[in-house]
């Protein structure tokens, strides 16, 4: 998915001389093509994420449209104040491309697990949040973002998922009316789709864009189902579960919500893949089925 987004960026940079790419020394075999083609609009700032965001804000000041790339953990938490003060307060349209979502970096340990990134950014106004779930959505994502005059954060999962083959911000895959509804985003949509393939009464709602939430379409889906399970590789207290709890209360929808998400802890036990942690926290296919049918 990273490659497709970077290809879209390259195409856009060919056509739009305002787009400026920055990396904090990440993206081997991805960024070189941009460096060679657009040397005056390419910057590797080094291992210095605070400076990465500050420089991006300065580029906005002189009229550029920066697109910034590094690992999500460093891109959000390390320079949180720079994002808040230098980007959000100024309303600067910096695009933040963050890789390695959730437990994508599984065996690298808790400093590289990222179950708390977009939830942190959710606390800051003026930043749209995208968690693409498929290649079809990723392909048009950069154009979608750059057509808006706002900052955006993209949580790019590892993988090249063909399904759902839709470029919509919200994708509703129906099950049976009043049956269980799974709501998810990013790579966690895949186990939801597997559960749906085995249990056709299950509906799935895919949220590729988490802010602004498409309240009309999400509300429509929640009205069709008395209970929904929010499946995510993010802490629920700041993730989609929390966001939808607020939404359901404000809209008086009466839908019961359940969280299928990691325990709110930093795990010191090594897992060889993201699936290890999904299993551990009951967010994999089996865990979702257990949550839907506890007996």
């Amino acid at each position, binding site marked *: 998915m990273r490659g497709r987004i970077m290809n879209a960026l390259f195409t856009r940079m060919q056509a739009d001389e305002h787009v*400026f790419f920055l990396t904090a020394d990440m993206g081997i075999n991805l960024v070189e093509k941009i460096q060679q083609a657009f040397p*005056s*609009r390419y*910057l590797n*700032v*080094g291992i*210095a994420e*605070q*400076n990465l*965001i*500050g*420089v*991006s*804000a*300065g*580029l*906005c*000041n*002189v*009229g*550029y449209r920066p697109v910034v790339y590094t690992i999500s953990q460093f891109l959000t938490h390390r320079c949180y*104040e*720079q994002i808040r*003060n*230098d980007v959000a*307060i*100024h309303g600067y349209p910096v695009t933040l491309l963050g890789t390695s979502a959730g437990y994508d970096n599984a065996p690298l340990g808790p400093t590289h697990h990222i179950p708390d990134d977009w939830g942190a950014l959710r606390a800051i106004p003026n930043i749209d949040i995208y968690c693409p779930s498929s290649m079809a959505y990723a392909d048009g994502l950069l154009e979608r973002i750059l057509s808006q005059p706002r900052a955006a954060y993209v949580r790019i999962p590892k993988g090249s998922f063909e399904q759902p083959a839709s470029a919509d911000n919200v994708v509703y895959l129906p099950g049976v009316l009043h049956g269980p509804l799974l709501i998810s985003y990013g790579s966690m949509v895949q186990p939801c789709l597997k559960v749906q393939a085995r249990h056709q009464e299950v509906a799935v709602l895919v949220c590729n864009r988490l802010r602004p939430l498409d309240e009309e379409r999400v509300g429509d889906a929640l009205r069709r189902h008395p209970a929904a399970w929010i499946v995510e590789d993010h802490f629920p207290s700041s993730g989609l579960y929390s966001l939808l709890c607020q939404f359901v209360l404000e809209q008086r929808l009466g839908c019961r919500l359940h969280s299928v998400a990691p325990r709110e802890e930093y795990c010191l036990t090594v897992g060889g893949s993201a699936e290890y942690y999904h299993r551990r926290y009951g967010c994999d296919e089996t865990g979702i089925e257990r949550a839907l049918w506890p007996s």
Partner: protein
Amino acid sequence: MTLVPAVPAARDLSVRANPREVRKTVLSILYRGKASHLGPSMSVVEMLIAMYSSVDLDLIRAKDPLRPRIIISKGHCAAATYSVMAHVGLLPWPLLETYHQDGSTLAGHVSHGVEYVEHSTGALGHGLSVACGCAIGLRARGAGQASVLVLLGDGEIQEGSVWEALMFARHHRLTSLIPLIDNNRISSITTTSDVIDMRPLKDRFAGFGFQVYEVDGHDVEAIMQAIATIRQRAEMGVVICHTVKGRGVPFAECAPIWHYRSLSDKDYQAALAALGQEAGR
């Protein structure tokens, strides 16, 4: 007695702002707004005058995309910044009178909500990175000669992000970027040398590849000369301005509490008297 200090009327802009007059303005708006940051405002008066006198204000007024940039990284010297801006004609006097008061756009830290202020600061260690972005962006747009002047505090440079930015600036040879350090030797609650002793400060910047100019930070001509020299030589240069925190107000000079304390009636009268001005005119 309650005083109603008058903010000075509009100046003849053909004459460079006078430090003593600027200090009176600073005192007036701090007093009227019951605001703090007297000490860090008074130390930078001459630096700000030199910075605004070293750029083409017409380009700034015209909001030319390729204009020179002035970034105030130590945002808590807002009273001095806004006062100097008023004295050079970049900020309306009636607006200045609203400093730190309900409904005003003039907060106690500089804000881009105020016309001609490039960037909002207040949390320290942000301005130099932003200035680097301006400088490299201006160069990419073919305006590499446009100056980017940045005002930093000597306490502020304890922030690690400042050194990230300096390394970046040196690597990319951003010669249009000129950091000016307000070396008043007091950070927040005590002296900088008590907290993080960086003396000799010159060596720190020299070690990062900068030519260092040390000047009397209360000598406008000396500061301007240093800026001009760096420009003329197109070198990586830093200007360390040796200043006195609270300069011009004897009871506030070198006294950390005047980072925080606001002026009472009596303080205001005493401060004005010290500047050779009758109070309550």
